[in-house]
């Protein structure tokens, strides 16, 4: 087996809460709590969860933008800490694209200047050479070359997202974190960006971490999936196995929530509901993080943290952390909801 391109081992990220003049630490935000996963080179891992699940913090940690409290990250066989120390080494391997390109592009610079700056800062090209590279980058992301003269405000949302992707590509990274890159776009345009990302991946063997709350997009782009809730991994494994039969009630709830664009199915299908009580990252629960929102929670869910395990008859790489996932009534309810969403 090849070594994975990206490997997280028992990663935790906690942010101290400081107060008063002395900035004393009075508590901690448990953003990410002991998570592990791997991404193979040239593949896409879909990281799914709702706001506050720790999915964006995980992406930022991979970019060295959030400090690891515990655990380790390896990027293409090199430790993240070493990469951070070597100036410029990390950005040359990994890049990140955010949800809102309007907020991440300098409004006073033209698109061409923005892209040229990246090339110059990283010493990849200068002057006329850089201009040529900018033209090629615009070609790569399907933008007309004359857009280089425009400012971000003169572009549509989809065009701006293409610019953000071009900026990430400028450094020729091997790995790109895509943090909700299509969530702010019209449904009719989302596919343009998704198709572009898939073409780029195929042509350049890029590795992606695709962060989103939208399971329907994830199904199109991912080879494997990690479902997070309250900073922990609830379920992970190959995409095929998870969509064929989700093991965790939370994954099933996410599937139930995706609107099916068919009025007949949408109004009739069985769902797994969540009670709306988002987890409190300041005081994480003992036991299962999903207990308060789960329909199947019992005493053991409140006292004991479930471990990620596989289940007989499923892909051995498909793991879920649920005390009740082997019970027939739970399996039955989950598979009915999954069939309702996927029929």
């Amino acid at each position: 087996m090849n070594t994975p391109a990206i490997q997280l081992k028992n990663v935790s990220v906690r942010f101290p809460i400081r107060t008063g003049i002395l900035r004393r630490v009075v508590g901690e935000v448990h953003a990410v709590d002991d998570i592990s996963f791997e991404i193979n080179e040239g593949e896409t891992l879909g990281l799914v969860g709702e706001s506050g699940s720790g999915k964006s913090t995980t992406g930022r940690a991979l970019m060295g933008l959030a400090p690891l409290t515990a655990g380790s990250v390896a990027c293409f066989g090199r430790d993240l800490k070493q990469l951070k120390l070597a100036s410029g080494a990390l950005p040359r391997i990994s890049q990140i694209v955010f949800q809102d390109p309007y907020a991440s592009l300098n409004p006073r610079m033209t698109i061409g200047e923005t892209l040229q700056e990246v090339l110059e800062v990283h010493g990849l090209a200068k002057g006329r050479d850089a201009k040529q590279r900018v033209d090629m980058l615009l070609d790569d992301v399907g933008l007309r070359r004359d857009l280089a003269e425009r400012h971000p405000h003169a572009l549509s949302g989809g065009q701006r997202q293409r610019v953000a992707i071009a900026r990430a590509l400028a450094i020729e990274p091997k790995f790109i974190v895509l943090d909700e890159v299509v969530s702010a776009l019209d449904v009719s345009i989302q596919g343009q960006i998704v198709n572009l990302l898939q073409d780029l991946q195929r042509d350049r063997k890029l590795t992606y971490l695709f962060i989103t709350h939208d399971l329907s997009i994830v199904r199109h782009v991912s080879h494997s999936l990690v479902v997070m809730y309250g900073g922990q991994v609830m379920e992970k494994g190959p995409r095929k196995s998870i969509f064929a039969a989700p093991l965790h009630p939370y994954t099933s709830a996410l599937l139930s929530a995706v609107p099916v664009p068919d009025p007949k199915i949408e109004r009739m299908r069985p769902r797994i509901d969540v009670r709306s009580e988002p987890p409190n990252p300041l005081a994480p629960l003992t036991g299962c993080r999903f207990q308060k929102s789960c329909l199947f929670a019992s005493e053991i869910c409140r006292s004991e943290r479930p471990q990620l395990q596989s289940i007989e008859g499923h892909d051995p790489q498909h793991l879920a952390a649920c005390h009740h996932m082997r019970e027939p009534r739970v399996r039955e309810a989950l598979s009915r909801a999954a069939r309702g969403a996927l029929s």
Partner: protein
Amino acid sequence: MILAQSSPLRPISANGPVLELKNLGVAYGRGAASVQVVHDVSLAVERGEALGIVGESGCGKSQTMLAALGLLPRGGRITSGQVLLEGQDLVGRSPRQMRPVRGREIALISQDALTSLNPAMTIGKQMAEPMIHYGGMSRSAARQRCTELLDLVGIPGAAARLASYPHELSGGMRQRALIAMAISANPKVLIADEPTTALDVTTQSQILRLIDSLRKELGMALILITHDLGVVAGVADRVAVLYAGRVVETAETETLFAAPRHPYTKALLDSIARIEDDVAERLNPIPGLPPDPRNPVSGCAFHPRCEYSREICRNALPILEDGTGAQHPVRCHVDPFVSSSLRAVGGAR
């Protein structure tokens, strides 16, 4: 033709529509610099009915509703048409005359609950204020009513939440609080403008079902504005599709999904990443971009992005007409799906 343009959505009940837009036009700026963003839009919604308005960013869906509420920003104006609330035209009313209409007759829920709520005021206070000032309620009665409303929209521990500030609530809870405020005066029409776009899918699903159940419980008419056809599938009775400021198709929801007639509607449906699709399939986005209203497209505004466009589409604006007599008007010269839609309607009968 005139009939088709003025009432493409024939009322089903005898009561007539509670809110009806007739040939509404909206423009920004004056003279040569004037930009028309809404053209000749006619829509109607009945008591207890849910109408979905679907289109991409910039298609004029929000502008249409802001115009109906008399809330167009500076520079915007209604250039034609009527906004009839139970037969009374609201166009031309002064801000003072509009005030009792908004909230009490027509309420609005917008996309971003955080910017719609006052961050420096508790939920209870901002909810109770209009009840006390306009409703003439006593402080304690208003408090009682606020608790009931928060309870109704599914906020746990409603009485305690009255003392919370907006930032202390999650996105979903804020949207629920906003819905509670919107329904507090028992409006006849609730306009929800992308009410779930900023929310997680699980919260989105809950909020949509909440809005839908409140509509049924309180007998309000609902206008749901969204760019996502998936969102209207579960809620709307009828859907109007807007493109470049014009209605291009309206139909009952099931008919629209089963047998769309306009190529744009078909393209919107095809662009949705369906959860049942597999990874190998590419998504089918609509190529290109919606037109910029400052540079209007000749003929049918969709023709540059349309795979069925012909010579006539570049030259002449198609009219919105209901050729089939099946309450399914469409604005298209080519109407490539007409045979399949006829089949579907025939089969449904």
